[in-house]
């Protein structure tokens, strides 16, 4: 008898969790246990179920955070070069997987340059870098219209220093999620 009640509660809990996942855009799951005053006789099993639901929500939140971090991860370039470096391809490949899992996501790609080149040329170079990133990602069959590109030239350095290592960090493309950034799904998820 006890076992059956527990099973029902667990099933109900899972269904609730599943429902809440689908409803998430409107109603992020707060994962709050019901106030004890209303249900003074609530048993241990329902508390466990609620905790599991909360843990599931936390897992999904962490996955969404990780997805956001991956989507926003910068890529870096060689001096006066807008081609995608081999060692930067993994960063972009991870984005591709996420962009597939989250078709509503759109990105703004902003290219940057270090301060060594000409000011005006760097404005164009930053844009060439952003275009190069867009073309690489879109090359995996993603719609190019999901991406906008811009350039800040040398005007927004990541590292204000004047050393080679500062320049390496400043020759980059940055990514900003412009739409579809809520409730990001991990790559290869249940869709």
């Amino acid at each position, binding site marked *: 008898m006890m076992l059956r009640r527990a099973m029902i509660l667990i099933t109900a809990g899972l269904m609730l969790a599943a429902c809440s996942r689908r409803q998430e855009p409107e109603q992020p799951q707060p994962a709050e246990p019901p106030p004890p005053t209303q249900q003074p006789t609530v048993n241990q099993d329902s508390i466990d179920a609620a905790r599991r639901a909360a843990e599931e929500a936390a897992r999904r939140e962490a996955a969404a955070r990780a997805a956001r971090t991956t989507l926003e991860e910068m890529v870096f370039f060689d001096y*006066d070069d807008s081609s995608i470096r081999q060692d930067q391809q993994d960063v972009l490949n991870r984005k591709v997987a996420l962009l597939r899992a989250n078709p509503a996501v759109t990105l*703004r790609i902003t290219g940057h340059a270090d*301060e*060594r*080149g*000409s*000011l*005006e*040329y760097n*404005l*164009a*170079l930053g*844009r*060439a870098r952003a*275009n190069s990133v867009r*073309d690489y990602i879109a090359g995996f069959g993603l719609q190019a219209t999901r991406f*906008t*590109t*811009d*350039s800040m030239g040398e*005007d*927004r350095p990541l590292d204000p220093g*004047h050393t080679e290592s500062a320049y390496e960090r400043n020759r980059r493309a940055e990514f900003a999620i412009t739409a579809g950034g809520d409730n990001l799904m991990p790559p290869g998820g249940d869709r």
Partner: protein
Amino acid sequence: MQTTMDKVMRASRFLFVAAALAAAPLAAQQQDLPPGVMLETRYSKAGRQTLAVRPFEALGAPETAAASIAGIIRNDLTISDRFQMAFVPQQLATGEIDYTQWNGLNIVWLVAGSVTPAGSGFQISVTLHDVVYGNARQTQTFSLPDLAHSDFRMAVHAVSDQIVRWISNQPGMAATRIAFVRQNEGGTYDLLVVDSDGENMRRISGSASLVYSPSWSQDGTKVVYTVHLEEGGWRLMERDMATGATRTVREATGEEQLLTPSYIPNTPKIAYAQWAGAAMQVFEFDGAQARPITDGRAMSMSPTFSADGQRFAFLSSRTGRQHIYAANADGRNAIVVTPFGESVEYSAPDWQPTGTRLVFHGASRGTFQIMMADAARPGGQIQQLTSTGRNEDPSWAPDGRHIVYTSQPTLSAGTASLYVIDTVTGEIRLLVSGGAGAKLRLAAWSPSLAGTVNTLQAHTENGTSNKSPSKEMR
């Protein structure tokens, strides 16, 4: 009575010394330069004739006004770098002009003038004396506004340019301004303008957005520039320099980038750079339609036109490296002007308003230096004009000999100032200091603004030059 031969003798004295001084240190530096580039060895202060500006007489006008006017003219003629400026002894500062005495001081040209009140301003009479021939070469009266008028200094600068023209039959650069951007610490930008003598600097556009690449119209009444809005979007804006009114010349659709605008002389068109597919090209825009006038891979940008609008130079990275090209105005016959070499980039060209020379910057020993080439002699020798610090983004003065550019001691200095170099004598002067945390960049030198000074009504009273035998170029 001295002759032209005496002038030649005076000049040749300087020539010999200058050549001897120049030869030694340059030989050592020459080895480190990029292939095809030579450090300018033809700098010469020789042949600069001695000129004096006598204190102007105040005829009913305040002494301060006369002193101010003569002071501006003296400074203009000094920074024209065309003359050896002479000190005026006290006993020659007033009274009748005795050519024998001035000649005894080896002075070739003497500028004298008088100032009388006229309305709220002044009328000045200026005489250029040819001391060698012992006559008044030119006399002209000019109307000037009062000292506090915003056009006062520019009106006096126009007088200085007239004196230069009397002597050399060449355009001066006193009655001009330089537009530039100030890159503030934190990445904001302002658009500013300053007179050719470093006075009267003022901000003409605020820091709400990023401002780049100012460029003057042929008549000096307008400046076109690029604006990048922080929230995205590029625009070409044009400012009427008299009224301060601005208008949008071209607004980018979507994420289009609009860079490096430049007026095309003798046309209503503006050239600029824009992406066309995977490559950036130079376009010409007539107010309604834009069409590309360059082709090729990678990036072509920074168009700059000859004074007749028939030719233009631009930067292109079509070969993988940045080089300066020259082409017909329609883009045909594009020829690379700069020499090919390892790790050398050339950028930011500007076409000489009086000829075919191009100035630009190129990397030399890892840092930018100002260089000069001749668009009429592609593949010819390039001359490097600067050698200390990092120097970039040059722009010609309308006299076709001075260049304004950005200079900083090192890239990490955190400040960059505007300097002027005379390509003939090598004289360098500070135009505007950047100060802590500010970089002054992308300077654009205006054409002569003498015609835009409304209050200046000059007329020739009498010109004796037509009768003078000394018509030869001096």
